[in-house]
């Protein structure tokens, strides 16, 4: 799988390696995604494709459906209509394999308050069946600057540090696809730099990133392509650039 920051990566228990077909398939392929929650239509016919080595940024006002889209992509939610494929794997037939390839950061941290930083990561390492759990956890903690906090309870950490731990949890099993829902929430400058570094590394090594954020500048900095969502519909798609920042801010203000 992927080497991080030049260090050697030990084998994990996950399947031996992607088949040629899986390598050829786009990292994320969603077609006609519709998601209804009772009487509320959260997503309407959204399609997107992310290839290996790409980072896609999704923007939109509150309630646009960005989080719902990421939940569907991460397998947490089943779409009412439409299809999701990751690296050629389909839901629900290959759900387990797909979950192995996907790492997600959500609105909640998915952490246990009364366990320590190390214990939280160790728990997830066991669930993902990582053979080199100890080394990998240390690696990931260093990446996020949490190395000296390993034995502290999550309850004792600040929101920003908890967020860093949430990101650490997401990348622990070396996923091919990172789905990040407002990962920069609560992060300080250093945290954001580390996050940008992780995203960059993921992209550089042939993985994919789908990210939503309200920080327009940050988003345009790390993403190569930008999607705009409003009221559950995908409105437009454009390559990211510096000029896009103003355009985005204008549109977001108009639809707020």
């Amino acid at each position, binding site marked *: 799988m992927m080497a991080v920051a030049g260090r050697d990566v030990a084998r994990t228990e996950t399947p031996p390696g992607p088949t040629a077909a899986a390598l050829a398939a786009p990292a994320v392929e969603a077609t006609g995604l519709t998601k209804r929650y009772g009487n509320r239509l959260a997503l309407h016919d959204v399609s997107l494709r992310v290839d290996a080595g790409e980072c896609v940024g999704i923007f939109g006002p509150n309630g646009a459906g960005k989080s719902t889209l990421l939940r569907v992509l991460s397998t947490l939610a089943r779409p009412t209509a439409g299809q999701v494929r990751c690296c050629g794997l389909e839901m629900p037939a290959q759900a387990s394999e797909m979950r192995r390839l996907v790492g997600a950061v*959500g609105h*909640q941290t*998915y*952490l246990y308050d009364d366990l320590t930083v190390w*214990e939280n990561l160790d728990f997830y390492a066991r*669930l993902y069946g990582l053979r080199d759990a100890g080394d990998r956890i240390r690696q990931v903690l260093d990446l996020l600057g949490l190395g000296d906090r390993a034995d502290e309870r999550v309850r004792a950490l600040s929101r920003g540090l908890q967020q860093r731990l949430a990101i650490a*949890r997401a990348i622990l099993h070396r996923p091919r696809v990172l789905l990040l829902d407002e990962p920069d929430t609560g992060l300080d400058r250093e945290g954001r730099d580390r996050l940008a570094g992780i995203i960059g590394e993921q992209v550089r090594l042939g993985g994919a990133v789908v990210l939503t954020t309200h920080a327009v500048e940050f988003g345009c900095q790390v993403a190569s392509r930008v999607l705009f969502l409003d009221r559950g519909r995908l409105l437009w798609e454009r390559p990211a650039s510096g000029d896009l920042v103003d355009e985005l801010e204008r549109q977001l203000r108009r639809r707020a």
Partner: protein
Amino acid sequence: MTAARQIYAIVRKDLLLELRAREQVTGMAVFALLTLVTFNFAFDLTGADRAASGSGALWVAIIFAGLLGMGRAAAIDRQQGAWEGVLLSPVDRGTIFLGKLASALLFIGIVEALAMAVFAALFSLPVLHPMVLLVVCLGTVGFGTLGTLFSVMAATTRAREVMLPVLLFPLSLPIVISAVRATTLLLTDRQAEVGPWISLLLGFDVLFLGISYIVFGHAVEE
């Protein structure tokens, strides 16, 4: 086998959390003991007929404590959305169910051991008999199975403290009837008649373990 390791990871995590917070088991134990003592005043647990009332008291204590414990356990997973973290992982849904069931049985088991010891001491009834232990195990597994399935569902509802008992009481009736009857028979030295009740308990356990294992995935999948 990975599933076994994953189940172990879940139980280990719940055990660690419990050791830190120590709310569940203590709360359950106090509740169970209080129930037993209160029943002593409501029914005559010292007279010659005490076997019947006694086994009723014991099972009410176990069930109420079990309800409390399972409700709390499901709530713990809700903190910070940790449950979704588990759902994101590649663990089979059925395996997650078995993991949660194992945790629940572990905690209820600890409380049961305590309750039975106290019960034996206070009411001088031969509860620590292997057949009685068998009945307690079978009854707890059945109750725990349905409880684990429904506590996960009830935890997301608005009236969650009420929802779990409302769901479990009617559905676990066969367990209650069989367990109390069997316990009474054993305590009054009528081992020969226990057969049908034990087979009902066993059948119930096997049937609902299978159904819950299959259905759990559908219950949690959005």
